């Protein structure tokens, strides 16, 4: 089944024409309504009328996460507040989140691309889908929710966590599809084994998993534990949320919904556009989004794009699983974490910068984050309650900034390895590649 055959199976030439037209329209909009973009374009001597086809995309300036932070909260919005019907946000350094906004039409478009995604996983109105992504500022829960309603499936908006309840509803409601992070899916699968649930009562046939990196080994494990077919979904809130691209039944890469999000692969050093098939940084231009249109947004995700037609019949390009980042962002239990955020918390608590290390591991399929902090003179007290208090304060401040629990371990000065030049801040022991 294909949700929107017209757009998903369009010949490449008409698709390019549609993209060109939408791009031109988008550049006009942001030139008129977003001073940030108008200034940038004027500096480069570009007028909206210069955009004649999709080939002109490469002449346009990039947008970065830093631009979003600099214009926090609404500086890059292209519509007045009365036209915004929803906000989402991701965690940011020292309390500054990346805020994204949606108009009514944006929510419709988002629902459309998630409906296409769910259809790729075989979800129809005959399905019961358990949406176990977090609901709230995170885009996962509500993104899947609206798309699933658009498909006509029966949605269980259970949100993340509460494993006992998840298992009970899997059994009692007979959910046929589930959407959550892959690590949580594996965790649920193991809980089913441990609780010795009656497997014949579990009716799951499809899982829509994303928001964090995962491997083919994990896919095999989840499929075996939950008895379903596991599909990879990709997205980021800046572009829309989940539903930027999605794997079809052929499972040979994730189809990018190019009529809304135009992907490019660039050399992260030079910014030069690379041909299909080459590894580089993924960049998106959101040509239809109204509230927060982004021009050539640098995702920092490293991957490849393939344009050869897929056996499923779709003509949309396929992106490979991301192989890494061109910055130091970590994704831990679906939460984006930058070492600089940890540093900002530590700096708030002392005058000098302590040596610290983030240690990420995966235990029982759940990611754990440990922050090691060297106890130097500024932190050291000879009273246990002071040191324990320090540890709890660091942990509490991190939890409120990141929305993620991290355990804090105090270590002796000099025990964290110093490398030549750039300090090593992260040890990722998860085997994801």
């Amino acid at each position, binding site marked *: 089944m294909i949700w929107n055959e017209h757009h998903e199976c369009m010949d490449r030439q008409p698709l390019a024409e549609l993209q060109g037209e939408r791009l031109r329209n988008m550049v006009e909009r942001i030139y008129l309504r977003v001073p940030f973009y108008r200034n940038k374009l004027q500096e480069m001597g570009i007028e909206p009328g210069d955009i004649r086809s999709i080939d002109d995309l490469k002449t346009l300036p990039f947008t970065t996460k830093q631009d979003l932070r600099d214009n926090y909260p609404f500086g890059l919005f292209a519509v007045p507040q009365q036209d915004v019907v929803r906000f989402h946000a991701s965690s940011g350094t020292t309390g500054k989140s990346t805020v994204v906004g949606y108009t009514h039409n944006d929510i419709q478009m988002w629902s459309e691309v998630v409906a296409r995604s769910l259809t790729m996983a075989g979800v129809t109105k005959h399905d019961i889908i358990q949406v176990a992504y977090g609901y709230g500022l995170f885009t996962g829960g509500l993104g899947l929710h609206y798309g699933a309603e658009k498909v006509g499936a029966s949605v269980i908006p259970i949100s993340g966590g509460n494993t006992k309840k998840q298992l009970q509803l899997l059994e009692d409601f007979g959910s046929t599809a589930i959407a959550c992070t892959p690590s949580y899916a594996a965790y649920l699968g193991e809980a089913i084994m441990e609780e010795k649930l009656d497997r014949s009562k579990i009716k799951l046939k499809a899982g829509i998993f994303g928001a964090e990196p995962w491997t083919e080994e994990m896919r095999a494990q989840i499929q075996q534990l939950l008895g379903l077919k596991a599909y990879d979904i990709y997205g980021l809130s800046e572009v829309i949320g989940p539903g930027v691209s999605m794997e079809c039944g052929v499972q040979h890469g994730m189809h990018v919904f190019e009529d809304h999000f135009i992907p490019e692969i660039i050399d992260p050093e030079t910014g030069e556009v690379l041909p299909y098939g080459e590894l580089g940084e993924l960049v998106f231009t959101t040509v239809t989004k109204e509230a927060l249109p982004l021009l050539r947004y640098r995702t920092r995700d490293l991957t490849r794009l393939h344009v050869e037609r897929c056996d499923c019949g779709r003509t949309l390009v396929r992106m490979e699983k991301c192989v890494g980042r061109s910055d130091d962002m970590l994704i831990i239990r679906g939460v984006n974490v930058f070492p600089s955020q940890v540093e900002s918390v530590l700096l708030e608590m002392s005058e000098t910068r302590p040596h610290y290390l983030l240690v990420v591991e995966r235990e029982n399929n759940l990611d754990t984050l440990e922050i090691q902090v060297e*106890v*130097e*003179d500024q932190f*050291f*007290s*000879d*009273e*246990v309650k002071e*040191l*324990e208090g320090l540890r709890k304060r660091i942990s509490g401040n991190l939890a409120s900034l990141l929305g993620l629990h991290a355990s804090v*371990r*105090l*270590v*002796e*000065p*000099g*025990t964290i390895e110093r490398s030549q030049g750039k300090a090593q801040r992260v040890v990722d022991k998860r085997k994801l590649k």
Partner: protein
Amino acid sequence: MIIKQLSVFLENRAGRLTELTGILAENDINISAFSIADTTDFGILRVITGKPELAEKVLKEQGFAVKITDVIGMIMPNKPGSLHHALQILTDNGISIEYMYAFASGDDRASAVIRTDTPQKAIEVLQLHKMELLKAGDVYQI
């Protein structure tokens, strides 16, 4: 009457304490009193040594987090009720103890090292009650 105690942060790691005592031995620094507060991940060693400034310097050079903490030392008869008597004096005067450790020296006397937020006041009230206190010069050579 204030005694300089060294406080050292130690990770719970096999052999770590031995490394520390080795450094003190090499530098000919005698240990007079010694106590460890431990948690699951780390411990805090509290130690009274001869030449405390030298001890601090050599330990810091070897990468330990070291701090000098002011404590007081008290001498009591080694017999039932004498510690209770001393603590009662401190309690009656509103002096709270952060931590303490005590040791009997084999003869008829026992000593206690006491850490409080108000060491000067503790010294005054103990002296007022005729309690014997250790002098810095003595204690570094106990």
